[in-house]
């Protein structure tokens, strides 16, 4: 399987200025700090982690909505991170994004039909007004909405319907990859399954690859083929969905999985409770980033940074003690 997207050593740092009394202190937020990823054709790669781990920044940097600080992004073998102007515009029709908040992602003053066909207009993929309207009706049908919704405004729709509109817009240019940034976490529980099923149908019909960014592990388990777990800007474990959820090796993944409440009162499990909070991405702990909360941490973890190693076939872990 040739990789559709290949990310190597991706870093994104933000410079911030903090006021301490009258003194301005310059600091660097290490949002993404060296991430390698690969997504194949028709594959769903999940990126999970807690807030502030850098998962959304990864998605945005790949799309070049943010400029990477360091690293390379290869799109079908072509450098995406150095593209400019027309060439970048051209490649963007192949990559779409769906945002978390369906209330903020749609322009309230535009008609739904215009919203979902705007990418087509921007990329000059439609020539006439009639063609654009025809396309809008077709897209709405694809995402399970009625074609006559094209002449309505976003405020007339519920959260789930708006997310369908957002998806219609993202797939309008027939992209090969969609970045889905928490696409269902703002939706009600009975609506979430509808959207997950729609995403799965679109993948089966069109062979789209997904980069699925989420914090909800059961959803990731359900929809992703492979999963990468992020902590403080780096990937700590990566494996196929079944392997990662079946036999997690990194202590952070284990703690994360054990913290997820299971909707079955029979399985009231004993938890591995993590102490404390995620450290600030400004002052990253030396050595292993997870050592301040890790139940296995030893002297060595403060000195040596564990590298991502392939412990089993296609099962990558960044921990000194993952074998035990």
């Amino acid at each position, binding site marked *: 399987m040739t990789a559709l997207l290949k990310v190597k050593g991706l870093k994104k740092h933000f410079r911030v200025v903090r006021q301490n009394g009258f003194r301005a202190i310059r600091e660097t937020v290490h949002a993404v700090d060296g991430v390698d990823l690969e997504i194949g054709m028709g594959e769903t790669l999940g990126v999970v982690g807690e807030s502030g781990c850098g998962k959304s920044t990864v998605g945005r940097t790949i799309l070049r909505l943010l400029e990477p600080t360091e690293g390379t992004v290869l799109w079908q073998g072509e450098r995406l991170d150095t593209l400019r102007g027309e060439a970048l515009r051209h490649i963007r029709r192949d990559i779409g994004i769906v945002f978390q908040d369906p209330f903020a992602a749609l322009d309230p003053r535009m008609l739904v039909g215009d919203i979902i066909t705007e990418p087509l207009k921007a990329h000059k993929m439609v020539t006439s007004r009639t063609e654009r309207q025809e396309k809008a009706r077709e897209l709405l049908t694809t995402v399970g909405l009625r074609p006559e919704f094209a002449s309505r405004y976003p405020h007339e729709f519920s959260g789930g319907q708006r997310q369908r509109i957002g998806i219609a817009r993202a797939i309008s240019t027939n992209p090969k990859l969609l970045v889905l940034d928490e696409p269902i976490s703002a939706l009600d529980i009975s609506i979430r399954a509808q959207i*997950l099923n729609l995403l799965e149908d679109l993948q089966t019909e069109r062979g789209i690859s997904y980069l699925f960014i989420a914090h909800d*592990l059961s959803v990731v388990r359900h929809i992703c083929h492979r999963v990468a777990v992020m902590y403080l800007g780096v990937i700590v474990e990566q494996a196929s969905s079944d392997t990662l959820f079946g036999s997690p090796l990194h202590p952070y993944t284990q703690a994360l999985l054990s913290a997820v409440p299971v*909707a079955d009162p029979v399985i009231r499990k004993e938890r591995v409770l993590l102490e*404390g909070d995620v450290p600030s991405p400004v002052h990253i702990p030396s050595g292993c980033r997870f050592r301040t909360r890790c139940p296995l941490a030893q002297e060595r973890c403060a000195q040596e940074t564990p590298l991502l190693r392939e412990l089993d076939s296609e099962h990558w872990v960044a921990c000194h003690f993952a074998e035990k």
Partner: protein
Amino acid sequence: MKASRNLLPLLEVNSLQTEFKTQGGLVRAVRGVSFSVERGETVGVVGESGSGKSVTALSLMRLIPTPPGYIKAGSILLEGQDLLSLSPREMQKVRGSQIAMVFQDPFTSLNPTMKLGEQVAEAIRLHNSLSKAEVTERVINLFEAVRLPSPEIRYHQYPHEISGGQRQRVMIGIAFACNPKLLIADEPTTALDVTVQAQVLSLMKRLQTEHNTGTLLITHDLGVVAEVCDRVLVMYAGQVVESGTVQQIFQAPKHPYTQGLLASLPQIQADSRQRLVSIPGQPPDLAHLPKGCAFYERCPKRILDICSQKEPEGTTFDTGQTVRCFLHGS
């Protein structure tokens, strides 16, 4: 008097109705909700946005903004005393000392201009007459009880200096400051990450056991309900459509809505990528409720004639499980 009080349930809510007069019409947010909470028991309220779960909680505290909202009918008995008959001043005394509340958003429920210790001290001072030193000591003890690291330093810090999980710990500290009999927690962990959620839930459970507090836990997360609740109320369109013990609700759900919700959850233990069963459509508009059962439009098991015409009354089984559906009696 004391003995007879203990025989009464801690909280008993009967046919509560809360409405809001809005420009879009009369919104019937809570339509006849009845339930009870015993001492030391955790009752979960699950439902989607607009199901009336938060309005129920605010009604118990009598914190419904009036106008546009008002409690139309029903009774709320706390150890036999009807809270709806209390004067605003008497109700003020009940809030905080007998019923406490923890809200979803720890970012907006603390005062950003006040030191953390002062905010907790305020809650203690309102309901007790203690000296300044005694209050400070109680605050430090509370901070220790909610496992805030270095409580003496935290006392003098402001909300923006601590993390979301720690803020929620402070909120729980305030809630337990006066040993309430009933704790109402409205989505207490929704804004938190899973690892922090697990910490906060185990903290609440511990304090609740220590103080024998009855808890009403409002959440949309069925996982949280399964882990911490003893009994569950499932709400839909302003009504309790099903209630029972966690085992009954999760293993033998009777209402088609409960069944649909449970089937639509992706399972973290499942091995295969099975297609999720989804509930079609969306919840009804509470200002324009359909005639008949509110779930009719989305129900896979509807019986055409009755369900669209009449509202089901509700049936109670011998096991204590209740369900509001024509498939099970009236």
